[in-house]
């Protein structure tokens, strides 16, 4: 039952991953106060630690190339088991979308529109996402490449312009923090930007990969996205030095300090527009994926009627979620490193194990061979 008619090219898939990871550079305030001057090291550790997690995702999608996550659960755990596991995933996708929506509301509130109530910011935003999702996967991921190219160009520009206010010593002393904060930092990073790639398992079947190219594009997107994130954190650390731990939006704070010429200084509003566009890409992708998961879970062939009710639900959910932004940061630092792994590591791993126990991938491959021959 393949709702998704539009196919996207592997290049768009890779750039979608990069855009996905790059747009969570706003959330660096989760781990920077914990590992103040080694946050760039922690990102590298995070990338290394999340490689096996990537391997689980890739082997899952290679085992079942033609079906997305919800279908895989049905295949592996049977009808009822699959339904329950997929319910967990569904709730996880909805929470992710609502979290990112809330982040956007706070970011726009803090950066530009301090007196507008966040409700309005989020409602107008989700309507725009709904309009994009209405047209399907092709439109949602079409601009990934353009956004990434523009954001990398502007990142390079901000590097060049702020060379003279960067301090070299702000990276020292290296590895001088207690081990616990490193573990916590790495754990947060593997969960927030990199662990969220589990959502891409939902759209892998709709990308026309040629035989084994899946690994190259999935890994490529992940590594390049991680590099972009690393570049952002390096720039923030170099400019802010040891004051990095005070700010709730460090990457936005550096953009306030960058001066082009001595007069044209306060350009953070231009950068804010860029960050909003990146966040738009991420929220639309997540919204699309949760709708797709919902429609596959209910075995319904089109999700178009559900767009608006789910959008309203997400707006309400993103408001109920936390009472204050401090609570959100605390939750992200203490609970998420233990709660997200259930969805991002445990469940996919169990699915993989059970699949191999029941030799489903071999049956799957033979079935595909017959389809090809017939």
């Amino acid at each position: 039952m393949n709702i998704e008619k539009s196919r996207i090219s592997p290049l768009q898939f890779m750039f979608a991953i990069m855009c996905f990871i790059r747009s969570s550079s706003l959330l660096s305030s989760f781990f920077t106060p914990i590992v103040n001057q080694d946050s760039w090291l922690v990102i590298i550790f995070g990338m290394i630690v999340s490689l096996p997690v990537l391997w689980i995702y890739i082997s899952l999608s290679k085992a079942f190339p033609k079906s997305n996550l919800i279908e895989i659960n049905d295949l592996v755990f049977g009808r009822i088991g699959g339904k329950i596991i997929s319910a967990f995933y569904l709730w996880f996708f909805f929470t992710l979308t609502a979290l990112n929506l809330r982040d956007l509301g706070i970011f726009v509130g803090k950066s530009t529109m301090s007196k507008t109530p966040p409700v309005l910011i989020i409602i107008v935003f989700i309507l725009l996402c709904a309009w994009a999702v209405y047209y399907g996967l092709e439109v949602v991921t079409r601009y990934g490449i353009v956004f990434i190219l523009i954001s990398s160009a502007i990142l390079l520009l901000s590097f060049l312009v702020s060379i003279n206010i960067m301090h070299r010593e702000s990276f020292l002393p290296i590895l001088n923090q207690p081990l616990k904060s490193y573990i916590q930092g790495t754990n947060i990073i593997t969960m927030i930007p990199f662990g969220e790639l589990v959502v891409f398992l939902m759209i892998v079947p709709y990308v026309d990969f040629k035989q084994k190219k899946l690994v190259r594009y999935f890994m490529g997107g992940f590594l390049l996205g991680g590099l972009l994130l690393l570049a952002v954190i390096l720039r923030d650390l170099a400019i802010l030095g040891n004051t990095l731990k005070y700010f709730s939006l460090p990457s936005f704070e550096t953009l306030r300090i960058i001066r082009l010429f001595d007069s044209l200084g306060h350009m953070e509003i231009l950068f804010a527009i860029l960050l909003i566009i990146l966040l738009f890409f991420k929220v639309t992708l997540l919204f699309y994926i949760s709708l797709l998961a919902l429609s596959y879970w209910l075995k319904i062939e089109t999700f178009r009627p559900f767009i608006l009710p789910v959008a309203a639900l997400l707006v309400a959910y993103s408001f109920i979620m936390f009472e204050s932004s401090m609570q959100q940061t605390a939750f992200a630092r203490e609970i998420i490193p233990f709660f997200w792994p259930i969805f991002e590591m445990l469940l996919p791993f169990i699915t993989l194990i059970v699949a191999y126990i029941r030799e489903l991938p071999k049956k799957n491959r033979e079935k595909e061979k017959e389809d090809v021959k017939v």
Partner: protein
Amino acid sequence: MFKYINKKLRYGFFRLTEQNNHPPKPEDDSKKTQETLISGNLTADLEYIRKLLGTSSDIKMHEFRYGEDFQLKGALVFVDGLVSNEILTESIMKPLIMNRNLSPFQTSSMQKTLDTVRQTILCSGDITEKYTIGELVESCLSGDTVFLSEGFDKALIISSKGWEKRSITEPQTESVVRGPREGFTENFRTNTALIRRRIKSANLRLDHMSIGEKTDTNVCVAYIDGVADPNIVDTVKARLKSINTDAIMDSGYIEQYIEDHPFSLFPTVGYSEKPDVITARMLEGRVAIISDGSPFVTTAPMLLLESFQTSEDYYIRPYFASLLRIFRYLAFIITVSAPAFFIALTTYHQELIPTTLLLTIISAREGTPFPATLEAIILILSFEILREAGVRLPRPLGQAISIVGALVMGEAAVTAGLVGAPMVITIAITAVAEFAVPDQSEAASILRIIFLVLASVLGAYGIALGFLGVLIHLASLKSFGVPYCTNLTFNHNMQDSYIRMPLWFMSKRPKAIVGQDKTRNKTNTPPSPLSKNSSPEENP
């Protein structure tokens, strides 16, 4: 308010039901004359044609006698003005009358006399025989002469079109510095000839079609077999056939009937007045639609980047051409977002303006009564009215009005303190930038107002949303099955979108539109200068 809403609902509801239970429109009565045959009795037939065509002064019926000592009675029916008198007198009247040895009925049948008249006497290339009055009337109205004769139940249609035509002049809308200057004219045959002259290949197809109940305009679908994608050609033809209106005055009508997204701001059918542009587009795989009586030829699948390309880009060297093209993209972004951005700056994010500039702007706007948004709307409105006045008035007066109007009004408004000077400058920049991209000027002026409203309500955040909204809208548009902004989002080869690669490098035609024949030139290596040892006499 409620009357409007329930009218809307009823209208919406009515359209729903109307589709599935109304039979198509009853047959038009004018088709009945198709069946009445020519009776052979000349006066009766002429009488019947007179009744059909009415007593309009330009329809001429000339009765004369011809043949051996003038026994045969004949009649010529033609529309004065459509027929070229020179053809009428020289190649029709003179031979008929001068030819004496056509004896009536001494040879066997009426058919042989008709054939002898057709083959030997009338010296004209295109002569056909018709049976029914309807066809006679039709071809007579389209400029041919009808030859009737006593006792014959068939008539001869002699093509004698030759009305006054406008000569080929340089089109006003697309003037170029370098490149061919000729433009299409209203005459159908001249346009097709202009295209034929440029593409001399055998597989250039000009499929003919006539549309419109009353006007019956000749429309021809021109494409290059092999280069154009067959199913695009079929969709174009199918859509053209499905048009059932009574009049096609200009190719603009056709454009609006066959375009994919009638509700969208952006045009999905391109048009141009210059044959070299149309032929270049056809060579890229597009289908051209030439309609009689309109100098604008439309090309079917249109891409967004077409409106940023001009023919001149390909005639000058690539560096400057690419630079111009990048300026055009910038101009489009400026013309859409400049007023909105100025409003967002002055009312929401004053910190972006450097301190000294901000202080001068405040002093400039010290006395102005209106809030920034209202001021911008007033200025944009006055600019649009000025531009429209400049176009509508006759040429010399028009230019004077628009320049004088802009300068004097702008200056007076600023000194009178009604409007801040920075705002006038922004609107002037927007106005100038809009002319850099003529094809999208309708979309630009509407988008500008939408962006302005968004900026005044939500500031820079509103502009970001507006920008994203436009991107989504563009991504969802398809023109005849081809996504609207294919080459702009880095998924196909970008050889001709933001910058123009050198001609010898662009060896492939655009992948999204083209049919089988994909290559333009064989190799994509730079043209190597003739090596020294090549003998001079090869090229004199």
